């Protein structure tokens, strides 16, 4: 499969932690919710898709995500990358503009809206690295 992750399960578990970190962070969570940019991430090497949206008014979570395309909302932004690039991206090691030019990430939809999320999500880089340092050192970029 060529992924740097030991299994699909490891990848999904870590991405779940990334979204949880963003959702539960007192700064990032409310700002991401307010930004209201549902995103669809496709990890082509693993054949996985995750759809992320802001929590609805009646939901306590700032972010809600499902590992399927069978969701009842439409993403505003589509991003496709490999699991390795996703791992680098969430560590702040993949510059989005350069990654697009180097065909490591492809985007479509309301890309401008996605751009507005960059400064909001920056704190997750350090948090994700901390997660990796606790048992997933092979993934540190």
């Amino acid at each position, binding site marked *: 499969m060529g992924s740097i992750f030991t299994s699909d399960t490891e990848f999904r578990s870590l991405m779940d932690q990334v979204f949880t970190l963003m959702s539960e962070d007192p700064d990032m969570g409310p700002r991401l919710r307010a930004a209201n940019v549902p995103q669809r991430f496709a990890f082509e090497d693993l054949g996985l898709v995750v759809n992320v949206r802001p929590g609805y008014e009646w939901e306590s979570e700032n972010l809600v995500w499902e590992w399927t395309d069978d969701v009842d909302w439409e993403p505003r932004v589509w991003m496709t990358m490999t699991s390795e690039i996703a791992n680098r991206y969430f560590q702040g090691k993949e*510059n*989005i*503009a*350069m*990654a*697009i*030019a*180097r*065909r490591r990430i492809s*985007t479509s939809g*309301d*890309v*401008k809206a*996605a*751009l507005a999320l*960059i*400064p909001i999500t920056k704190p997750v880089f350090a948090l994700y690295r901390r997660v990796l340092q606790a048992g997933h050192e092979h993934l540190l970029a």
Partner: protein
Amino acid sequence: MTEPPAISLAEAARRAGIKPATLRRWVDSGVVPRPQDGRWTPASVSYARVVARLRKRGHTLDQLRDASAQGRLAFGYIEDLLPTAHSDYTLEQAAKETGLEPALIERIYSTIGFNSQALRQISDDDLQFLRYCAAGLAAGFPLVAFLQMSRVYGQALAQIADAEVRLFHLYVHEPLMRDGVPGLEMAEEMEGLARELLPLASPLMDHVHRRFLQHFVEQDVIGHLETDAMGEPLDLGRLRVAIAFADLAGYTRLTEEEGEEEAVSAVERFVENVEYTLPEDARVIKTIGDEVMVVGGDPAALTDWAVGFQMLMTERPLPRIGVHYGETLYRDGDYYGREVNLAARVAARSAGGEVIVTRPVVEQSGSHLEFDLIGEVRLKGFKEPTELFLARLADDD
């Protein structure tokens, strides 16, 4: 916070540099707010001093009364939080104390941007500042570099101080004025806020400076390695860099159609987006209106950024970007020379959504990009034509 000791009218007048009778008259005529319970406070004394200063500058009492009623004189209190410059040393004494030649002290002052009056008011703090300068030079930092650094410090810190005062004025003073808060109350409120904020400025700046210093030291190490690898030494003070100019196509039209506020917001979003997405070794050197000048060490990375950035910018006004790679003169924290001018001209030839580059950029760039030759173009101000290329993602095969 302990209450400041009460000050008599005579003492207040003395501190303001006027006669007690004058101060009493100003209070009676409403030029200076009447102190509560007749107790003069440092804030109310400052108010009187501001009025005294404006009187000396020729403002009439009527003008001052109006300004006072509108709360426009209240800002003057804050200067009391800053140490007053005493003339403790002459230039010659300062030179003797620090070991710096008087002419060099004059040059340092002028380079930093202090006015000529500052040389006649050299205080203990100024002397300490000059000792630091002397220590820097004694440590072996070349004078030519030291003076450039002084100019950068002066310009950057003047901009910071100016922004601090303007932002305080716009977001604290003006709202208080709009709310009709009485002059003295407004002054005391602002003084309280400024008293809490001022001590935070130096540690904040020190931290930010250290963080940036760490970043640029790392970049310098990388730059050295890569320059050494290229084996082409440059003259002293010259750097080979990638230069990008980017602006918003149709900005003038946008301003006309949407108004200044919307146009300025568009520029702010554009500059922020540039800053958020730049490669690690590149940074915004300056912005001029809607134009941004970016410099980086790696032409391939900067071109990748430019092409990727255009793909992220999908709505009007679209950016126009030009990238060039060449030898520049590094002076006072900025980049100068023919190649910088050329880069600006290249950007001016691009249309919204385009990235136009020169041959040196093409030669350094990766195979994931394609470069369509536009042709040899005579750019404004250049005798020789320049080969220009349109950069884009390589077609999928």
